[in-house]
């Protein structure tokens, strides 16, 4: 059900949830969860079902139980908007997590860093480790392979009988891998693969490489 990539002699496992696990570093990478989005909408009078809040946390718990990482890195847009009471759910959730949590800041992350630090979350504009660069926005930097989010990549595929599907995906180009949005209440942006691009679509159960 997962897919394994080897990059610069390191092993990365792509998970159907949209998360990625770096085996050598015991690091789980998750992008664009957009926590607090449901509460934000509700606060402004749009009655999005409150139960949807639990969905994101449950999904995170499942993927953590699967990989049992010692570190978790969020590649930005962990929270959708300004502080709201969903932060309290996040606090409770962190209490149950034994892993170290790092947040690479994204454009939606406007909550004060002090708030994160008080919960023991480490904030950084980017992570540089071995030949790998982790950012929120996709970036090209000589000598590094870049992991990022922000785009919410998706892809459109078609077949005989005028069939068509739009699916979330990991989108890989030569020195770059863009992770799909992990959050429940998020959309996707359709990309068109060119040349050497590799596309790994995610379904509820599987990661499937379209280039195989």
């Amino acid at each position: 059900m997962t897919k394994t990539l080897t990059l610069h002699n390191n092993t990365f496992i792509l998970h159907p949830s949209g998360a990625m696990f770096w085996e050598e570093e015991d690091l789980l990478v998750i992008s664009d969860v957009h926590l607090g989005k449901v509460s934000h909408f509700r606060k402004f009078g749009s009655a999005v079902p409150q139960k949807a809040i639990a969905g994101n946390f449950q999904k995170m718990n499942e993927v953590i139980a699967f990989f049992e990482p010692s570190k978790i890195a969020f590649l930005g847009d962990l929270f959708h908007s300004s502080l709201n009471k969903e932060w309290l759910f996040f606090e409770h959730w962190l209490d149950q997590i034994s892993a170290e949590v790092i947040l690479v800041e994204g454009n939606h992350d406007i909550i004060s860093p002090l708030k994160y630090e008080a919960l023991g979350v480490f904030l950084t504009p980017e992570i540089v480790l071995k030949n790998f660069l982790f950012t929120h926005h996709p970036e090209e930097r000589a000598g590094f392979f870049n992991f990022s989010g922000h785009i919410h990549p998706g892809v459109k595929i078609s077949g005989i009988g005028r069939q068509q599907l739009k699916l979330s995906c990991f989108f890989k180009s030569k020195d770059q891998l863009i992770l799909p949005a992990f959050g429940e209440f998020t959309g996707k942006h359709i990309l068109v693969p060119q040349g050497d691009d590799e596309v790994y679509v995610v379904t509820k159960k599987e990661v499937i490489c379209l280039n195989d």
Partner: protein
Amino acid sequence: MNQKQLIKLANDWFKSRSWKSFAFQKESWKAFLDGKHGLLNAPTGSGKTYALWVPIVLDYIRQNPDYKTKHKPGLKAIWITPLRALSVEIEQAANRFAQDIGSGLTVGIRTGDTSQKLRAAQKKQMPDLLITTPESLQLLLASKGYEKTFKDLNAIVIDEWHELLGTKRGVQIELALSRLKTVSPKMKIWGISATIGNLQEAREVLLGPGSEAFQNSVLIRADIKKKISVKSIIPEKMETFPWRGHLGLHLLDEVVPIIRKSRTTLLFTNTRSQCEIWFQRILQKYPEFAGELAMHHGSINKETRLWVEQAIRDEQLKAVVATSSLDLGVDFAPVETIIQIGGPKGVARFLQRAGRSGHQPGKESVIYFLPTHAMELIEASALQKAVRHTVVEDRIPYLNSFDVLVQYLTTLAVSDGFFPQEIWPEVKSTFCYQALSEEQWEWLLNFITQGSQTLQAYDEYKKVEIGEDGLFKVNNRAIAMRHRLQIGTIVSDAVLAVKFLGGGYIGTIEEWFISKLNPGDVFTFAGKNLELYQIKNMQVIVKKSKVKNSRFPSWAGGRMSFSAEMSELLREEMFVASELEADSQQNVSSSTSAALDAGSVEKSIELKAMHNIFQRQKRESIIPKKDEFLIETFKTREGYHAIFYPFEGRFVHEAMASLLAYRISLLSPITFSLAFNDYGFELLSDQQIDMQQVFDNNLFSAEYLMDDLQKSLNATEMARRKFRDIAVIAGMVFTGFPNKMIKTKHLQSNSQLLFSVFRDYEPDNLLFQQAFRETFEHQLEEGRLRLAMERISEQKLVWKQCEKPTPFAFPIITDRMREKLSSEKLEDRIKKMMAQWGDL
């Protein structure tokens, strides 16, 4: 003055203008002055404005005998029109009478176009007659102290009620009336409607079923019979007639002589893009029409539209290419000829358009029908019959539209607040909510106050708050403002304003079209070729372009379905064709007369023109007879096609395709792409359908119809689309607004996402369920579907395995608007598609 004297006053005025009042006008005056409510059935251009405005003025004179010297201020009457464009016309007519007889009454307009300044002035001092739209009326209910504004209201007239009935704007009117009945106790309610099938029901919806107003009401019919002559445009050589397509440009050369021959011609198209294309192509080929040809559709800015309308009246134009934006109101005397391009999809619409010509009493209305593809000739033939026998459709009113009720309750909470126990009986008295249960009412109140049914930890939902005294009220100013901005957006698609780089507003365009373009791309809009410069603050900034090849924007909502009446006429024509084509080969006439009613066996010129196509159809397949249900299968590069021909109209076909695809998919995993038009539907797959299994398992059965439809994935997809409007109307999605910079980025979301969240987490939500109900009642037309299935079960199934697509199949299989349905695992489908890539 007594009633007799009052009516004499009006008659004298008519005489002074050398007009003669019609019987229906006098009847309306009398009924109104007797204190009745009512519905007036009168066509456009018949003097219907005077039928109701005159008695409103007379009633004022009666109550204020010293009216000449002493004007009593305050709002006395409201005139609701569904189209802003019509308000000026009504204002002029109303002013004419009010001033001529020296009533001292003032007339004012209040719509989305009214300036802030004028609105503020109106709030201080309302005109005596206010001409407005359903949305603007709702907005008045959303302003503080509205009860005072309406307290002396004596009359409300809902013009073009047939256009509002069967829409959610109609529901808005029902709710507004339910409130006004309480705050304006003297108010008389009148509707004006063109001829529709369910006029009595239209009156009931307007006045409230069983209400006091309904008991004390009348239905007045103008009974103005118009002679209408329908002519089809048929080319000399049928061989060149295309089998598919919807533009009809191949007949452009035949249209030009018709335009030249008459004073002014209106060309009606079914979509705005078709309108743009026709306008462009006529000018390209016949540049001499420059300056004499104009275009009119709903996305073009108001000034241009008003200019076009005035130019038609002044006879400055030879022809106007238009969409339904010119269907309503406005009297254009110089219009002599109408050309309908492509099937009008309904008899009422066709008649309405035909009625736009020959406005002088006694004059014949001439309408040309231009079929865009060969099969539409059958439609033309059917329309001829419809006009002869005056068959007209019903307009189906909405029931239990929770979204509109959520919007309305929030509106009341935004203004002065409301007590549920006061509003409940009012809401319950409307047609739309007559079956609303107390549980549902409680649910809705919880929804607007808590955003859910039970209080949850950490929740910060904020919209309507309940005061200590039990008053439901919106206290947050930002929420109130967003709600007011949202009221007007019952119209569904997100639109952006189109402007020139140097300034100058051209019109509005749908977001989804423009989002497909990149800066530098050229598209045609309002008859001009424009280059996209940039999109900024919900505005599309463009430059003029000299590039010849450009893209035409398409607007959603162009797809309509045949009405039940139209479908039946079409089937009859098909059977006539089938019999006659059989005759022309065998020369046996006895079977024909046995199968058809005496006298109806007449081969129209349209059917004659189709002879070659029918022959070809017969060579490849058959023309189904009355007792036959035709199924064709064939294979092309695209896959395996199966075409079914119920001749029931697009919406019924959509449902039937969905149902059948679902039932077949239960037999074994399979994926379908579905297409449909008004004649039939297609199931396309990468696998062959085992047709024998379809017959053996009796898959056309009407049993478990609803159950199966609900389970078919396709119904979910349709509901997803319905949900879009519901989410906007109920205020769950904030769309943002053209010309208004509002920082709402974090609040913008896609209703599709919202739909999925409801499906996964709150499937019992009434608004979510409403999306399904609307799909079944209004889109899939459950009732018609059932009747159609029962009809088919009586028919003989004829399965033709064809070599290639038949003339009947062609327009369907080339349709690009498709639905999908699958019982295969997603993972399997992806892998199969990947394998197919390898093959290509």
